[in-house]
């Protein structure tokens, strides 16, 4: 019973946050809605006993990524209300509507049409897929074994990709011929 109430409340927060991101014309408020929605998702994770995942969600997404979004928004000062009457890409709105409707149809179809046959993969609402893999171990151990054991190659490939992206960004913004702008320079004042 408690689970259902918590799920309903957290689900509402997630949905309201998601709508807020799309519907707010002010980018800072959109970012705040995104944070609210992350918190809702974190509560849903806790409900599935994925405590570690819930807090990583908050630390990484709410605590770092959205803070960086806000940092950029504040630094660039794009806090004016955008003019929404002009479509940036022609046909984008129609396309978005169609894609959203198609996704809804597929999801609802999956919900209602599945589970006809015995043994078929069906949406039943039970927690079969979210049970801890090993009841005796805390899920942080399971996560570590999975990430650094079975999937270590994917993990390292991701790390390499991120390194390449970082190096690329540094190379792109670095202007080799520019004057050295260090302020920590003795004897520079009377230069």
């Amino acid at each position, binding site marked *: 019973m*408690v*689970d259902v109430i918590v799920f309903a409340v957290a689900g509402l927060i997630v949905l309201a946050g998601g709508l807020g991101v799309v519907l707010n014309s002010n980018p*800072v408020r959109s970012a705040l809605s995104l944070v609210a929605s992350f918190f809702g998702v974190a509560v849903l994770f*806790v409900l*599935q*006993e994925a405590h570690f995942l819930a*807090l990583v969600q908050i630390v990484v997404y709410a605590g770092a990524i959205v803070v960086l979004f806000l*940092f950029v928004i*504040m630094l660039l000062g794009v806090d004016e209300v955008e003019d929404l009457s002009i479509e940036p890409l022609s046909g984008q709105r129609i396309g978005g509507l169609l894609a959203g409707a198609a996704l809804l149809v597929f999801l609802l179809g999956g919900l209602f049409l599945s589970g006809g046959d015995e043994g078929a993969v069906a949406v039943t609402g039970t927690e079969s897929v979210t049970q801890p893999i090993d009841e005796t171990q805390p899920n*942080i151990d399971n996560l570590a074994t999975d990430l650094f054991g079975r999937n270590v190659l994917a993990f390292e490939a991701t790390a390499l990709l991120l390194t390449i992206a970082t190096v690329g960004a540094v190379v792109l913004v670095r202007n080799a011929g520019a004057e050295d702008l260090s302020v920590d320079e003795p004897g520079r004042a009377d230069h």
Partner: protein
Amino acid sequence: MSLLALGEPYLSDGVDLGDVVLTVVKVVVAFVVLLVSVMLMVWFERKVISRLQNRIGPNVAGPFGLLQTLADGMKLFFKEDLIPERSDRFVFQLAPYLSVVPAFLTFILVPIAGDFSDGKDGSVSIAGRQFFLQVADVPVGILFFLAMSSIGVYGVMLAGWSSGSKYPLLGSVRASAQAISYEAALGLSLASVLLISGTLSTNEIVQVQAGEGFRGIIPNWNLITTGFVPFGIFLIAGTAELNRPPFDMVEAEQELVGGFHTEYSSIRFAMFYLAEFMNTVTMSAIIVTLFFGGPAGPNFGVLPGWLWGFVWFFLKLLVFLFTFVWFRATLPRLRYDQLMDLGWKLLIPLALGWLMILAGIRVAQSGGFGITDSTQVDTGIVLVVGLAIGVVAALLLSSAVRTSRQDRLHRHGLVEVAPVFELDGGAPAGEGHH
């Protein structure tokens, strides 16, 4: 009941009315304790700074001026509440709450008392219910602290942005950059503690440290078992997270008026103030829990065991509260680029490297190819190795800085400048010239 799978013994099987009452009582007690401690902390800070500056400090309201904070708080309550015309009203009103709530929530993790001697788990029993003397023993404990400290920056950021004026905005841009930079160092130094303790729960972290240390005299605190370096990093990064001097770029009275809270007045300003001091108390408490064994300490009888825990906790806490005040009274504020250099170029690499060393020693120990058989002796070796690495790193760093400075000076056609002050107190040397 998945939601209630918390570490607390009394919540393990079902919940009745008594458990709910107990939890509510714990929350209320923690809230009152935190508020009172903030009141005393403000008084303590003003008094200590006064003494360090050769003044007397508050001495009129109540005995020793103890009620000065109360008087100031009342004054703030009755002041006019201003909302700037160009502000974003909703966010402007929301921001102070976003500061206070995470500041309070972090405190629930701290075990403030309990008997941890002779392998006890620090729980007490009242009316057949066994519970810890902390609001909640969250299963992922210390990660919750990281989450809350990263959420806490929203209050400061949004306050500055929503004020609709330039100095608060500058303050909040600094706040976000600073929080992101030092969050990483904080988390990495924390990882060393978690590696040694092998648990995320604050209660268990204290239990591990309550054990007998080297030769039965030196306590088994994480300060020693992690080899001092993570503690140093944690203290520096923690001070930066608190936005306290010497890292108070966010407020920087001389350049930014009041920083993020320039436009705030009355009760909303008081809430930022409250959050700042709550954070200071909580950060000291977390440092004590992580590195100094929390309430663990010898039990000399007379008092009940859990009360000894509180005595030890309080004494250790006092040391760190004083340290933070001491920092504020003696250290000049860093320049912004120095702040970023310290965070990214020194603290993060150091924390990462130290974590690797500790992990290596752990693996060596469990694989049977450790330096010695004893963890305690290995810990000693960790210390020596760490010291050696520290010295080498410092030498390398200073030599690199010197080389790059000479190189730059050479490129600009300048000559090396003599040190500004001679060691024997001689007159300042001349400035650089062509």
